[in-house]
């Protein structure tokens, strides 16, 4: 009898899993670099840089990717559209890397403005913002078309 109740509890959890929902998105994301850094990146290179697999600009010096915090809508869109991973996959990916000692995630800032300032100041840095926030303090290093 007790087993039966425990099994029922289990089935209930399974049924809960059937619930569904959906996501929404914001404006177009562009990858930005310092105005003096005339690098042009491919989508694959952007992915590798932000997933910690590539630590230099192709054929050049070190690259410092800057991420937005996990709850940022830009971060979510960047992950889905450019990295082709949802936030759960991203979270699982970094959990595995951190706790295997194989890598640490990019540093994070809380806002687009902060990110833009950092990129405008450091020729090694790259980040992502929406196209509408572009100005002449930074340049586009990659745009997904």
């Amino acid at each position, binding site marked *: 009898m*007790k*087993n039966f109740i*425990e*099994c029922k*509890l*289990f089935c209930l*959890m*399974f049924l*809960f*899993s*059937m*619930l*569904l*929902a959906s996501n929404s998105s914001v404006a177009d994301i562009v990858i930005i670099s310092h105005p003096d850094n005339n690098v042009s990146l491919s989508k*694959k290179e952007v992915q*590798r840089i932000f997933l910690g*697999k*590539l*630590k*230099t600009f192709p054929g050049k010096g*070190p690259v*410092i990717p800057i991420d937005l915090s*996990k*709850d940022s809508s830009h971060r979510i869109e960047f992950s889905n559209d450019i990295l*082709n*991973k*949802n*936030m*759960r*996959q991203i*979270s*699982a990916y970094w*959990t*595995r890397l*951190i*706790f*295997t*000692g*194989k890598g*640490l995630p990019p*540093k*994070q*800032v*809380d806002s687009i403005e902060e990110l833009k300032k*950092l990129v405008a100041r*450091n020729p*090694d*840095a790259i980040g992502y913002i929406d196209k509408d926030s572009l100005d002449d303090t930074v340049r586009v290093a990659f745009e997904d078309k």
Partner: protein
Amino acid sequence: MKKIVTVLLFASGLFTLPLQAADLRWSGFGSIVLGKTIDDEPLPGGTNSTYKPDAAAPNVDGAYYDNNWSMKPDTLFGIQVDIDLNDKLSLTSQLVSKGANDYDTEIEWLYAGYELSPKLVINFGKQRLPLYNYSDFQDVGFAYHWTRPPLEVYGEELSSYEGISTLYVDSFGDWDYDAQVYWGNSTTDGTPLGDVNLKDLFGAVLTFTNEELKYRVSAHRAEVWTDGDTGLATLVDEDSPSKAAFYSGGVFYDTGEWLVGSEVTYMDAGLIQADTDGGTFVSRKTWMVTAAYRFNDFLPHITFSEREIELAKDGTEAVLTPTLGAALAAIASEPLDGAKQISQTINLGVRWDFHPQAAIKLDYIRRADKSDDVIVDSAGKTLKIDVLSIGMDFIF
């Protein structure tokens, strides 16, 4: 608090990049799990079977699930610190405290890493033994869907070594790969085999990944001997270690919606091969197949796993569970040569990601004993058991 940390990280890591400021990051993980056995086949003496989810834990009561609810066997807490001493040299340490080990805290990792180039890192110190896809983060429940990886494949008593490893990370076309090579020594005290020593442990791991697929293969070898009060210690000692080899291969496919994976291992324990009587030994084959499908925050999953240990005639009883070993010792006249101890587990579970840094898991496992009659007749179905557990995994 989060802001302060971010600011500090930036102050040390970014603005002052050319300077020598140490950049320090703390991260942690834990699991709080409640579980019990809900069905088992009583052993010949009338006692109930128990289930030990962490093979590396000592043989204390707290390490086993029995027919009372218990929080010790799977509960653990770990903390990791990563310190960048400069842009090439880093230190990593991980401390883990396990309920199965009476919450004693142990240093699981302590190593220094040096970046020889942006693609090549060399690590010195105490590190995790990279036997399987899941071994590096086996303690970090949040990183996978089960409460614990299937015991048939991942129930390994050895978890770390002291030595040197190199990690090379590169890519070609759409594929990324990394190659890890290591050398070291390892001692694990208090296992059912006694204190297990591995000398000249040497291995290589190759991993290929693209967006959805991951392939991993590994090969390892070592000289093994044991100390302590077990039958095995008299057969392989420091002067006559035996050569053991271990291989694993895995494929994992993750679309974000579907997650399907399989890992297969083979171990040639070679334990007694080196002995002069010419010849008996233990081999072990294991595999698991898992599938999961994500419905929004819920990830129901199903996993099959099997472990097959092939016995030889002399001394191998010590390799088995203590209960089984004793039973087999009592029937030493039986022809054990080639007999197989087989266990299979089905794991049904669901993971609920109710928070970005925490998940609740419910797992029901049914383990079946398919050992050859010569073993089961004498010892009973020692491996047959059903276990239910509910727990929460978190990271920070």
